[in-house]
């Protein structure tokens, strides 16, 4: 069944986003090394409860089917349960992502009692040493406790999400087994050099050989495993991975940040990809439908330097966030281009001129720590 007509239509944009990600807060109890939103400290300009509910009302009017809630750590917000209940009551399903610290027995039972709600627990290693090197001491234990609580509360299938790094590529089978043991669904997702990820990307991102390993693993296990279509750049290796294999930024998805800013996707929290604010006159709807940035993203994109490469149709030039934050031009190869074209180009990039989103909301004490180095095992 050809999806080209459908994909073509999706690239031209939809009346309302399908996977709208809404980061509820920049506050977080963890300081993961690769945090895409550079979270840590709450922003004083955060949307109020009333503003958040007004936004949900607007999403309901637009018939947004569900929202993907994240952060920071969304459960840190005091009105977290109030907001998700409000969304569900207003025909907006909720899927939220959490580090699990605040899912104790009571919270698990509360979540289990709600319908139209999906929960995803983040973890980046099959054991504490691997995981905590990236997510911080105690974070593995907290995530596992949350999973146990959800299971004991009869929540049903939840999701376990891992970001693939150099240090956990060999653990994919173990992650699958872990998910199976809980009756949960596994998500594997691509590391981008976004947020704090820009600092650690060079030592954390999978090597070229490891990328091939991931590709082979996904081909063998893709049916049960979610990827959020984040590995379509690997399609240049051969048989395409399951999924739509297109970048949805500004076309199918976008991000609303904790202070109401609208960005093309969660991985490009940078002025260049800022479309507007839900606090603007026309609200979220007019940003989604009419902002200059999104309108331009819905125009046919140029292959640029990739035009002469036979793989462009398969890989679509990869991920714009990955290119942007390592300083590569957007109309050229992805830094992890499987043919090595990105790696060649990277050598000539002046690191000092790489775009930076700054420290974001990273806690000041974290900035004083030494930069993360390769994990020794």
């Amino acid at each position, binding site marked *: 069944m050809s999806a080209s007509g459908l994909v073509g239509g999706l690239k031209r944009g939809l009346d309302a986003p399908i996977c709208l990600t809404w980061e509820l807060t920049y506050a977080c109890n963890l300081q993961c090394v690769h945090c895409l939103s550079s979270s840590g400290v709450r922003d004083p300009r955060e949307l109020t409860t009333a503003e958040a509910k007004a936004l949900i009302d607007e999403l309901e009017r637009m018939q947004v*089917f569900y929202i993907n809630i994240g952060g920071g750590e969304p459960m840190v917000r005091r009105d977290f349960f109030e907001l998700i209940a409000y969304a569900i009551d207003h025909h907006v399903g909720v899927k939220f992502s959490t580090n699990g610290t605040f899912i104790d027995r009571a919270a698990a039972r509360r979540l289990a009692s709600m319908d139209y709600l999906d929960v995803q627990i983040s973890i980046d290693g099959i054991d504490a040493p691997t995981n905590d090197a990236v997510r911080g001491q105690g974070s593995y234990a907290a995530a596992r406790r949350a999973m146990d609580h959800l299971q004991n509360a009869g929540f049903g299938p939840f999701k376990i999400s891992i970001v693939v790094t150099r240090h956990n590529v060999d653990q994919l089978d173990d992650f699958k087994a872990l998910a199976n043991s809980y009756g949960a669904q596994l998500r594997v997702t691509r590391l981008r050099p976004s947020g704090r990820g820009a600092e650690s990307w060079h030592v954390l991102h999978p090597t070229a050989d490891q990328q091939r390993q991931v590709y082979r693993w996904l081909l063998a296990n893709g049916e049960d495993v979610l990827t959020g279509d984040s590995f379509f750049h690997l399609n240049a290796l051969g048989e395409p991975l399951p999924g739509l294999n297109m970048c949805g930024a500004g076309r199918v998805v976008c991000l609303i940040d904790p202070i109401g800013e609208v960005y093309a996707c969660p991985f490009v929290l940078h002025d260049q990809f800022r479309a507007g604010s839900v606090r603007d006159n026309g609200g979220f709807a007019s940003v989604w439908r009419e902002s200059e940035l999104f309108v331009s993203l819905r125009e046919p994109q140029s292959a640029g330097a990739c035009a002469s490469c036979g793989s462009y149709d398969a890989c679509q030039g990869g991920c714009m966030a990955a290119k942007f934050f390592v300083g590569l031009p957007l109309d050229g190869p992805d830094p992890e281009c499987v043919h090595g074209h990105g790696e060649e180009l990277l050598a000539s990039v002046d690191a000092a001129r790489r775009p930076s989103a700054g420290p974001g909301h990273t806690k000041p004490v974290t900035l004083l720590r030494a930069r993360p180095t390769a994990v020794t095992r």
Partner: protein
Amino acid sequence: MTIALDAPYAVDPRVAIRPEAFGALCYHYGNRRLTFLKSRDMVRVVQALAEHATAADALRACGIAEATWPRYADALASLQASEVIRER
């Protein structure tokens, strides 16, 4: 996979249908599945199902040429399989 056109159908109450430029998106809140109706005609047919005694009546009322009914029957069958529509 096919469907009986001489039976009555309706859209599952847990399904939301949102028109788009070239059809509509259907989201089933219960099973989380997302389906695209790829033509305006198909959208009208789906929305007409509940108001007619049979699927055939709905097709007729929407002015769908009988020669094309097999394509619609296939489409309705897959909508039934994904629980977007059901016999009523």
